Every structure is written in C-alpha cells, then in structure tokens.
C-alpha cells in the first residue's frame, strides 16, 4: 500500500510525528510532501492509497476520499487563535469581524468545514 504524509519540516509533518508517537506506529511513506494539500492531491489523483491529512482536508475533498477518524487524532489538533491588531486604525471593524467569526453564524461555517470551535 502506498502511503503519503507531510515532511517533518512542515506543520502537518510535525502532526504526523505526533500521531505516530501517540499510536505507537511507524509509517513507511512513499513520499513526504511539502504541504498537506500535496498529500491530499496524491490521494485524490489515486497515485497513493492513503495519506495522513487534517479533518478539514477530508471535507474539502468531498466524495473523492474516504475519511477514517481515529481516537489518537485528538493529540494532534492545531488551535488557531483570532486577534485584532492592537494599534489598528480600524479597531471597530476588526472587533466586528471577530464577533462575526466567533458568533453562531461563523461557528456554523467553521463546523461545516470540519473545524471544531471553542
């Protein structure tokens, strides 16, 4: 079976190493890509049989791939903060944007894309 992952030098590759440690497995990939979209691309083009990507990538690929959830993925979750520039001239607009993203509508958009929200 051909497995493709991210190279350890890029964030998704660091996440891959975390998963390997958490599950006690060692992957022998046929390729270590420079970005997670390259991993997904190798799977959607059917060059590779499987790849390790984020939940959100599985969502964007739609029917072309089959996502396989596993419990240990909890160990490799990326948290994205949201913040406004301190000395911004458009402070009101920035606050409105943050409110929109963290509000119910924003959360719905993020959930639909496969993100978890706090």
């Amino acid at each position, binding site marked *: 079976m051909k497995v493709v992952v991210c*190279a350890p*030098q*890029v964030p998704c590759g660091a996440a891959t190493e975390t998963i390997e440690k958490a599950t006690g497995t060692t992957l022998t990939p046929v*390729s270590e890509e420079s970005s997670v979209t390259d991993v997904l691309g190798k799977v959607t*083009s059917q060059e590779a049989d499987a790849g390790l990507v984020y939940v959100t990538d599985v969502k964007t690929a739609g029917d072309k791939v089959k996502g396989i959830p596993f419990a240990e993925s909890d160990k490799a979750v990326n948290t994205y903060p949201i913040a406004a520039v301190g000395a911004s001239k458009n402070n009101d607009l920035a606050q409105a944007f943050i409110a929109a993203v963290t509000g119910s509508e924003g959360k719905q958009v993020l959930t639909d894309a496969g993100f978890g929200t706090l």
Partner: protein
Amino acid sequence: MTQHSGTGYTGVPPWIYAIAAAGALFVLLPLVAMVAKVNWPQFIPLITSESSLTALGLSLRTSAASTALCIVFGVPLALVLARSPFPGQRLLRAFVLLPLVLPPVVGGIALLYTFGRQGLLGKNLDLVGIQIAFSTTAVVLAQTFVALPFLVVSLEGALRTAGNKYEAVAATLGARPTTVLRRVTIPLVLPGLASGAVLSFARSLGEFGATLTFAGSLQGVTRTLPLEIYLQRETDADAAVALSLVLVAVAVAVVGLSYMRPRTLTAPAAATP
C-alpha cells in the same frame, strides 16, 4: 566559437556597454546577495549533512540518466527536424519545444496523467507490475521531459549550420546512410551535441516543479537537491542558502564546461585557415 574579422573594429557603440553592464548586474546581484547571506562558519557542516549529500548524489545520478535519455531520443529528433522535410514538421518542432515555455508544474501534471497509476500509459504499466510514480524513474522522466528541448534546439542549430555537403559527398562515395551518420554527421556536429548535452544536464539538475508534482519527495529516492532546498527553507534558512550555493556552483561548473568544450573541439579546424 568566437570569430574575429581581424579589422579590430567591434562595431559596438559605447552606450551599449552601459546597458549590457546593467543586464549583467541584474543576473549577478541576486547571486552576490545569496553569497553574502551564507552562514560561512556553518557552511561545510550544512552542505555535508546526510540529507544534503544524499540529495546531491541523487540529483547528479538522475541528471546523468536524463542527459543520456535526452541524447538517445534528442539526436534522432534533431536529425529528423533538421534534415528531412515532412508534413507537420513545424508542428512537431513546436510540440518538442513546448516544455521550454511550459511551467514545469504543468509538465508534472501532464506526466502524472501519462505515467501515473491512473494515467494513459501508467494504467497498462501497472497491470504488468511497473509502477513509476514515487520512484527514481519518475524523477528521471520529469527531468528528461523538461531538458529534451535544450538538446534538440542546440543540435538542430548545429546540423543546419553544418549543412549537408559532406554528407552528400560521403553518400556519392558509396557510404550507407548509417555510415554517413556515424562517420560524417555526428563528428561534424559533436560540439553542438556536447553543449546541448551539457545544457540538458544543467536543466535536469535544476528541475523542481515537474518532479515535485509527478515524483513526490522522499530522501534518497525522489528528493533531488532543489526539492531538498525547498524543504529546508521551511525550517532552516541557513541550510537552504548553503545548498542553493552548492547548486549554483555545480551549475556554473557545468555551463562553464559547455563553453570550454566547443573551443577545444573546433581548435584543429580553426588552425587551418
């Protein structure tokens, strides 16, 4: 290759030199900037790390293989394009030269749909157990795809310049076409063939986009020096710059070689005016 008329008149207006200098600077300055950025105390350890040496070795080996493929397929292509007019010749030339102007990533996608597991040829190759994607063969194919036009262009130019007078004479003396090719044509265009081969090698060495798209990236198998530089850039800028300098040095050596070659090879002819 340079020819002097012997009058001492160069015919180049002085202001041309100023613009030429600006053009030369435009190419040289980025290289100087890169050299200035190199972390010299760490230079040797950076370029002699296991991953760097593996990538350099793979690059040299695959580029040599690609150059060999370019010669095998490029020489007949150049001969056909230069010597025998046939319908669709201009079209064939346009298509052979296409990789020169095509973004390499497009070449990679095209190769993927040809030799990939689901590709035009790859599907059949897969049935007989040959898988090209993710292999060193894929790297060689990607490099050959982008480098072939360099050999064809150089050699076709050399063939046209050489003309076919000697070949015609050889033929009237009873030489068969293959003998003419082997004993007259090829020796006559050897300098052009050599510089074309060197250019193909240099282009193979620098190939990145098609390789990344088509072959993937794995140390020792598909991760050539440009891919290693791209990856190192993510975490270790010093290593990326150091390796870039190595690639530049190899490229300069290779291109320098291509300008040495024709002169030494044509020297005997030039000695008898």
